[in-house]
């Protein structure tokens, strides 16, 4: 008996032959797939007046008159494609058309199960996927790209390389974890932060909000962001150079060379530099000490980062589908311009960090019968230098207004701090899948972190060099997931359990004594996710996770000086629920998701007059909805809009709130955006005969105003707010030879509006960028 799928596959071909025999026209049949060779259903095919849609298997057939024909293929989630074909009477033609995904799709997550090509499956856990390829020709950093996704807010403190804080469905900061190919970014050292990482080294970005697959072995309270590195082609060279306002330069280089598909060498790297000397509106005191308004350029905000990665290995051997060893050398240099609310400029303080990372990786699809494995082991050493020794006190015009007799620009002790960190990470992921209905995934990540430092300047202040005592942290994260497809119900279920443990060795200062301090914790987590997909056009999801985040070494041990250790810290926990509906149509798609978080034991720094300590203080309930819609009104245009509303409500007990009454209970937490959205309109002409491409895009980002402090306090007309933001960007690019050479020009913040992600901290105004890309394969 011929399997149904096979019957369907042969049906168009059969039609080709039958029809070919019946009439003297040309039958064009074929299959539309994406780059993972998955069928693309409901894709629109059009030539002249003849139109049709591909079926669930991506198959189509057209009856066309002979001659030179151009078939336009479009789908809401993919870039349009024009296929030109010369049809002769009596011919029967089979076309295999592969479509490229648009930059952000509403598809399901492609979860790497073995790391081997093709070993991907659909997953019930919702995520936003951003194809980084679309940004290779743009002058954007990874944080900028992520900021365009629904439910995500990135708040930065300045220009290129400035501190970036991510929020996913209302959970912020350390509750979000970041990965590159399943490896926590913390273990890849300097320049791997999303505010500096070049999108040119990334193939796609996966944003998991609330519920995180076990493959990402980390204690993520509110979600995770994973970057998948580029593995485009066996042989290619991709180089870009970008120049922009504020003396900004970005260079990237990516290459891979395979020898007979057995051995390969690959390298990638990037270099970023910016003076970040954009204009800001500030106050400078006059001779009488009265502040006067001035518009000045930032004068101490230069930023530099680089990343070089070389890898060599082999593929398709008896013992490995892929194995490789690599080295990463990366570094960051950053001048620090101002304090956290941009009121006090600094003129001499800076920080730099250099990391060297070595690693080995291995993957094998058929390790044993039905068993696939992925392994990674890495070691890195980071050296960080924080210099804050200047006695100068600056004003915003860059002049030295005063000179202190003690204290640095930031710290009271002054610092010439050198920290040396050794990290070791090991990861093993095993997938057992007997058939397409059942699979089990086990993941284990073990990390060690050892930090030691020296600071002669601080030692002179405190009488002891506290940094000279080592701090160690060992963390083990394990997870086990079972996925089952109820084929008759078209329902997929994923159940998982996780265990998080750490033990830490540090010290605390008691009087003038240094005492050893040891802490350890074991915490469990679990999740359950369902996906129901009755047909290709409709999908529904619901997922729950009991998530946790372990305290880090800084929260546990403090800074040994003003931030006191807290041996009683407990892990942060959260109950996360996601629901979602998704509709797909050839010309549009839409998705609506609801989310709920109930977080507890959130760790905050509680300050007193002289000391501070991290404590489990905050409890909150988060509810929200995000919606996204993509419309393709014409094969050349794509319009994408998304919006998020989130309501983060204080549920902190009276004891922990710091308030003697309960009037803040059930109020919205201040200083967090609650209404925001993005929109982008892009226009792309399909490649013509010369395979030249023209693209134009315009996007707008909106954040509704919000209070810095609680809504019920203070006169409404005297309250401190972070104002509404509307930031518009546009750009255009022209590519030659099917994208081999691309020149793009962009304007960011077109209207030159004052942009504040955080209170009082201005971000860059209007800027211009030119970028040149060469891609050789």
């Amino acid at each position, binding site marked *: 008996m011929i399997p149904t799928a096979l019957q369907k596959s042969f049906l168009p071909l059969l039609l080709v032959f039958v029809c070919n025999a019946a009439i003297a026209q040309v039958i064009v049949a074929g299959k539309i797939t994406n780059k993972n060779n998955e069928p693309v259903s409901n894709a629109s095919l059009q030539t002249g007046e003849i139109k049709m849609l591909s079926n669930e298997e991506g198959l189509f057939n057209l009856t066309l008159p002979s001659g030179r024909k151009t078939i336009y293929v479009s789908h809401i989630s993919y870039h349009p494609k024009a296929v030109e074909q010369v049809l002769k009477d009596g011919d029967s033609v089979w076309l295999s058309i592969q479509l490229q995904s648009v930059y952000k799709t509403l598809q399901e997550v492609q979860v790497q199960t073995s790391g081997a090509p093709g070993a991907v499956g659909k997953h019930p856990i919702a995520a936003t996927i951003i194809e980084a390829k679309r940004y290779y020709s743009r002058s954007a950093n990874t944080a900028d790209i992520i900021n365009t996704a629904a439910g995500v807010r990135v708040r930065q403190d300045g220009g290129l390389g400035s501190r970036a804080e991510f929020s996913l469905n209302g959970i912020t900061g350390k509750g979000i974890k970041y990965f590159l190919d399943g490896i926590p970014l913390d273990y890849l050292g300097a320049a791997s932060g999303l505010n500096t990482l070049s999108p040119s080294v990334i193939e796609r970005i996966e944003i998991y909000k609330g519920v995180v697959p076990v493959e990402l072995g980390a204690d993520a309270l509110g979600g995770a962001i994973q970057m998948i590195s580029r593995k485009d082609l066996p042989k290619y060279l991709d180089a870009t150079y970008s120049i922009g306002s504020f003396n900004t330069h970005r260079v990237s280089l990516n290459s891979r060379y395979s020898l007979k598909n057995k051995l390969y060498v690959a390298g990638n790297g990037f270099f970023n530099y910016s003076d970040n000397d954009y204009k800001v509106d500030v106050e400078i*005191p006059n001779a009488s000490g*009265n502040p006067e308004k001035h518009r000045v350029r930032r004068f101490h905000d230069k930023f530099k980062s680089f990343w070089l990665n070389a890898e060599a290995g082999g593929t398709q051997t008896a013992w490995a589908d892929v194995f490789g060893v690599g080295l990463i050398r990366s570094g960051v240099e950053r001048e620090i311009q101002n304090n956290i609310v941009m009121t006090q400029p600094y003129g001499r303080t800076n920080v730099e960090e250099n990391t060297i990372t070595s690693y080995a990786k291995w993957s094998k699809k058929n390790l044993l019968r039905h068993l696939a494995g992925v392994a990674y082991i890495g070691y890195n050493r980071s050296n960080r230098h924080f210099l804050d020794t200047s006695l100068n006190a600056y004003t915003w015009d860059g002049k030295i207004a005063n000179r202190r007799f003690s204290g640095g620009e930031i710290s009271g002790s002054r610092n010439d701090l050198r920290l040396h960190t050794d990290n070791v990470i090991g990861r093993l992921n095993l997938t057992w899948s007997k058939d397409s209905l059942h699979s089990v995934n086990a993941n284990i990540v073990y990390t060690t972190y050892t930090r030691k430092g020296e600071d002669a300047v601080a030692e002179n202040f405190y009488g002891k060099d506290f940094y000279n005592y080592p701090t160690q942290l060992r963390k083990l994260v394990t997870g086990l997931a079972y996925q089952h497809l109820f084929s008759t119900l078209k329902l997929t279920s994923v159940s998982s359990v996780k265990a998080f443990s750490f033990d830490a060795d540090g010290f605390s200062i008691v009087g003038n004594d240094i005492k050893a301090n040891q802490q350890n914790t074991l915490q469990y987590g679990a999740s359950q996710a369902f996906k129901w997909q009755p047909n290709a056009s409709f999908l529904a999801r619901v997922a729950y996770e009991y998530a946790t985040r372990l305290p880090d070494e800084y929260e546990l041990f403090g800074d040994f000086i003003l931030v006191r250790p807290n041996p009683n810290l407990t892990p942060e926990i959260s109950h996360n629920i996601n629901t979602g509906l998704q509709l797909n149509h050839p010309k549009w798609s839409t998705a609506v998701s609801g989310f709920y978080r109930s977080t507890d034991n959130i760790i905050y720094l509680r300050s007193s007059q002289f*000391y501070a300590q991290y404590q489990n203080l905050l409890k909150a309930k988060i509810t929200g909805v995000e919606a996204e819609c993509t419309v393709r009104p014409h094969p050349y245009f794509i319009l994408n809009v998304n919006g998020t509303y989130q309501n983060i409500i204080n549920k902190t007990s009276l004891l922990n709130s710091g308030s003697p*009454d309960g009037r803040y209970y059930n109020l919205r937490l*201040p200083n967090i955006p609650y209404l925001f959205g993005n929109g982008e309109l892009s226009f792309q002409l399909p490649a013509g005969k010369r395979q030249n491409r023209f693209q134009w895009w315009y996007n707008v980002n909106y954040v509704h105003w919000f209070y810095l402090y*609680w809504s019920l*306090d203070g006169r409404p007309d005297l*309250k401190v707010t972070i104002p509404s933001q509307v930031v518009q960007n546009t750009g255009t690019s022209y590519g030659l030879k099917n994208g081999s050479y691309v020149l793009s020009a962009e304007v960011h913040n077109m209207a030159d509006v004052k942009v504040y992600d955080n209170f009082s901290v201005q971000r860059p105004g209007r800027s211009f960028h030119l970028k040149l890309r060469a891609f050789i394969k």
Partner: protein
Amino acid sequence: MKKWNLSFLFVAALAVLWSCKKDDSPTSPEAVEINYAFANVAGASPNATTYVTGTKDLNFTNLTTGNGAEQANFASMWRYKQDVYLTASGAPATMTRYSFDNTGKPVVAGKLVVPGANTFSSVEFINDSVAFASVGGGLARVVRFHPTEFRITGEVNLTPILKTGATSTFYLGMKSRSGKLFMGVHYFNGPNPLYDSAYVAVIDIAQSKVDKLIADGRTCAIFQSGSSVNAFALDATGDIYILGLGSAKVPSGIVRIKNGETNFDPSYFFDLKAAAGKDCRNLWHFGNGLTFTTRVVEPSDPFELNGPNYEFYKIDLANKTSLGKLSTLPKVFGSSAATMRKFDDNEILFVVAGANENAMYSFKISDGSVSRKFTMAGNRCTGFYKLK
């Protein structure tokens, strides 16, 4: 006919609009005279800040922050005549002057900024044209400014009182008397006192110059200031009493600079730790034997990381004895929010900022009874004044 119809409709519409027109004749809000000013820290962790509110009188049961000016960070409040001055924490040191307009709204009436300093740590108003403010954060100076014109007019160079070996130096607490300004000085060597002594700088007001630095080894650490804590007290005879927090080696205690003198009185020392049983901070003196302090409850947490940790005590300056704990009041934030004021001869008002309330209490001078006068929104009242 059609034109007539249209004209009629137009006129009718105008009439309707006119009749619906809002009465926009100017109605000025009722004038409110502000006689009292309050600073309250309000908000739940981790978002809390200071609100400045004015009231006509004290005849209310609950003071809200609803009419208050919101500060962008914590601030201490000072007063001179009808205006209040907010000194915010965080660089650069900024002093913001507020007036209350005739609607009772706090209005910014000027700012003073000192780059490189973290905050104005103490302020002392001498007269309409002279005031002094010390700055924290490593600058060796006291700023002299003109309160009426609100501009900096000079400085007192503190370089002569810097000490070798001091990793940081704090200037906290001021009191003026007879042409001299007495200012608390505390030297740190890392987290510990450089010397176990109490220091006061004597500054000549007319010359804006440090006369000398005096020291007393019987106590240590004149190290508290702001509108919500106090270490300096002037009695009716002109004697200045100053409280030192103490250290591991010397107790908290009170020293004296007698009227007409510029040195510590060697014949007077009030060992507060011995008298009250534990270390104390804060000193308020209202004459006629009315003197108060706050005593720590759990000595291991003097800076109150784990919540309020002080209790009000009545003390006798003359006999150097403790008169016991004040009533059955809860523990209060003695390191950051314990203020006492006397506006008339009947009562002393004081802030009880504890774990469960932020309230103004009254101490009846006639019988020593204590009662709650009104509650306040927020976590702790860090300043209140009667405006003159």
